[in-house]
């Protein structure tokens, strides 16, 4: 289920090492939470850790990866929808790690298989058209607005700065899902400076065969709005625990909220009560016990009970963990 996430490497003094067990724990935890639809049961997980470094960032990456893996859109229905779309319907075609604006040009049947036709070039200059079979149809997504005419020469844009890293990690479909559209999988509440530097600064890698390592960052997975910059599809958003909360964010319904530290939890926990929560409490944080008291208060008001299915979750020895199903509002 984890894909190749458990094979992540981390660079330290120009050398690649296996991601430490404690860091893998947070990725797995985030993945486990992120893959669950929030509308069924709202999961509240809290961990007490000896140091906060990378914990929330790694969990957030797990949440987004889990969300992508848990995307249950039906490929057959998606393909039928594309085939029945009107001629000229604008789409985005994912090809070779780049995204091309295109149009649907009907479908054809060859040797008993239906193929979708997607044109990505102006017919006057060649009209490059691609045939897409059902199993590859996740590479095609409908877009709301057409740019009008197709380009004279197809020139796709790279939606992601290190596509090979993500493709190696989550597969071609995962790459497409994670980069093709904006979706708020994860809100990360904490000190923005710390989070940005951990998401965008720590070098990760994944072996791709022949001992070649594709380099990436946690943010290639989390696609955090504040790290990748504007005008790009994002999956996560950082909320500073020391700033004011924008109304639009407070009413958003992310799949999961990761609280990095007690302060943000104490301030903003009255929001996002339809989302999963992961709370990272650093035991050296002066507000840690206040955060734990508030979290235990949430436990008192839980909806069902403790999340027994997480009780076998292997954790590093110095980590305390609790998990229960929170009351949904």
């Amino acid at each position, binding site marked *: 289920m984890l894909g190749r996430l458990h094979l992540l490497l981390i660079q330290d003094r120009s050398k690649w090492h296996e991601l430490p*067990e404690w860091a893998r724990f947070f990725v797995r935890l985030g993945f486990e939470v992120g893959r669950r639809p929030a509308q069924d049961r709202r999961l509240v997980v809290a961990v007490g850790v000896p140091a906060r470094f990378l914990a929330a960032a790694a969990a957030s990456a797990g949440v987004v990866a889990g969300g992508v893996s848990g995307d249950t859109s039906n490929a057959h229905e998606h393909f039928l929808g594309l085939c029945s779309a009107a001629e000229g319907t604008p789409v985005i075609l994912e090809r070779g790690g780049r995204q091309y604006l295109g149009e649907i040009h009907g479908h054809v049947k060859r040797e008993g298989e239906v193929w979708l036709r997607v044109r990505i070039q102006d017919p006057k200059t060649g009209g490059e058209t691609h045939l897409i079979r059902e199993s590859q149809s996740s590479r095609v997504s409908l877009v709301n607005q057409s740019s009008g005419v197709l380009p004279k020469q197809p020139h796709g844009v790279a939606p992601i700065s290190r596509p090979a890293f993500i493709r190696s990690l989550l597969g071609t479909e995962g790459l497409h899902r994670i980069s093709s559209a904006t979706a708020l999988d994860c809100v990360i509440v904490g000190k923005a*400076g710390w989070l940005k530097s951990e998401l965008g600064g720590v070098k990760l890698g994944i072996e791709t065969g022949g001992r070649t390592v594709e380099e990436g960052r946690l943010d290639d997975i989390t696609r955090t709005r504040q790290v990748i910059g504007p005008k790009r599809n994002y999956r996560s958003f950082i909320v500073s625990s020391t700033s004011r909360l924008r109304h639009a964010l407070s009413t958003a319904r992310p799949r999961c909220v990761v609280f990095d530290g007690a302060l943000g939890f104490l301030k903003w926990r009255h929001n996002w009560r339809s989302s999963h929560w992961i709370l990272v409490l650093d*035991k050296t944080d*002066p*507000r840690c016990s206040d955060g734990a008291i508030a979290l235990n208060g949430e436990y008192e008001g839980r909806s069902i009970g403790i999340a027994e299915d997480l009780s076998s979750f292997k954790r590093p020895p110095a980590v305390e963990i609790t998990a229960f199903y929170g009351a949904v509002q």
Partner: protein
Amino acid sequence: MRATDLVVLGQLYTDGAAMKVRHHRVRHDGFRNFCVALGQLQGALRDSKSGTDPYWTALMRSAKRFRFDAMASPRAFSDICLLGSVSSLRTQYARCEGMYPQLVALVRQVIDLLEILSSTKDSPLLDAASAVIGNDLSDSFAIVLCESRLMAALPSILLRVPALKGAHLVTQQHLRHTVWYDRLLLFGAPSWYGDFVFQAPRSRQIDVFRYAWISGKVVAKGLFTAPLGEGPTLEDEGSDEVSGDVIDVGDVLPAPWFADLSFADLARHAEGEAEDDGSRETVRARPFLLEGNHVVFLEAEDNATALVLDLDEDEEDRLQRLPVDDISEGMYVLLRAAGGGDYVVAVADGLLGAIKMEVRTMQYEWKARLRGLVRESTLLEVSLRLLDRGSQKANENNVRHWMWGRSIRPNDPADFDAIMNLVGLGAEKDRYCLAMKAIDVAHLQAGQVIRRALLAQVRKADLSALERDGSMEFDLPGGDTGRMIASRVIQVGRETVEISSSRVGKPIETEGA
């Protein structure tokens, strides 16, 4: 990321869970006799309800401070600084017989023992630590002190002890960082250290050196009501048994300060009796206990902020203006070294230049008139009259805030117009409005000037010294008026109090241990 970080993090997550606490009970008859005598004197004062008599302050402060310092740091008794000389204590308490005849014998005994101890070179805690480390080949161990104040002169003392001269000397705050040692040496009662020292340990072994007559078992504390799997464990090899003449640790160090002190009393005591009517400039403020036994009150009204240094942040983000309610232990608040109040006002006055006198006089004038009206009636009455004149937000709290000298003007022009009309300045309201706008702009610019100057200072400062000592001065433009002190927050008061605005930002010295 440095190579050691990953290694250290691995140790924190794995080895930290197997931490053991070893207790080393230390004995010294002379010091025990002193502690017993002082404990009896404390008890007698408590029983006779005489402890609050200021007569006892000098003796009790000196004796209690000596006792605490001797228990919490590894040094010779003669290396402990007394708050006052023994001879001055003898002079001061020479007439005790006439005032408290039943306590004379105890007082003499305490002073005699203090004199003997303060001249002896015995150093029981240091000797015990040296003996333990002397047999060990650990290459990385740290001496951890519960208060920064106790660091003074210790480095040179340790240099004279072969077994300990390689020790890292740190305060407990340092153990909040990603660090790891083979061994930690603590001195005194474990309860003098924050929970994080034991619950998120930075070593596999913590050696606690404490006198045999104080208690100190360490127990594992879980964070959650319903943990998944086993909760945290902690191996404390010592029982809590102590000799019969045990001293309650709570008597050695004051109980949590916010439970002991009435902040309103503390503030009133510091500023003298203030008039208690509606015209007094008061604000809601939150008390903070700072390093060095100082309490400061910071305004905690809505939107009130204070400058803080957060050493955990990246260089560019270290200096922050945070909502006062977000300030927590371990951060460093920046206060003016002289004059109290906000440095912004002084810098803004400089930026206002030639018009400073005129606009500040105007600011003072309308506030004085408004205060005058409140004095003649009530805050409620004035609020209602303002509402009648078109104010949108007049109420008792807001009127009080508008009267306050540090506020510039109401945000809503309708409120300002209503005030101008009520205080008889309606004809000049446009001129007043422009003047307040000039002050507003000057304050904004002043904030930026201060931030730039402070950032420059912070960049070149030795912040490890700030962490070690708990406070540091920063010189900004303006000579003495521009000196600011960063002080570590030791504890945050849970309750806010109503205090005179003149007390905001001025540290008040407390009695200490």
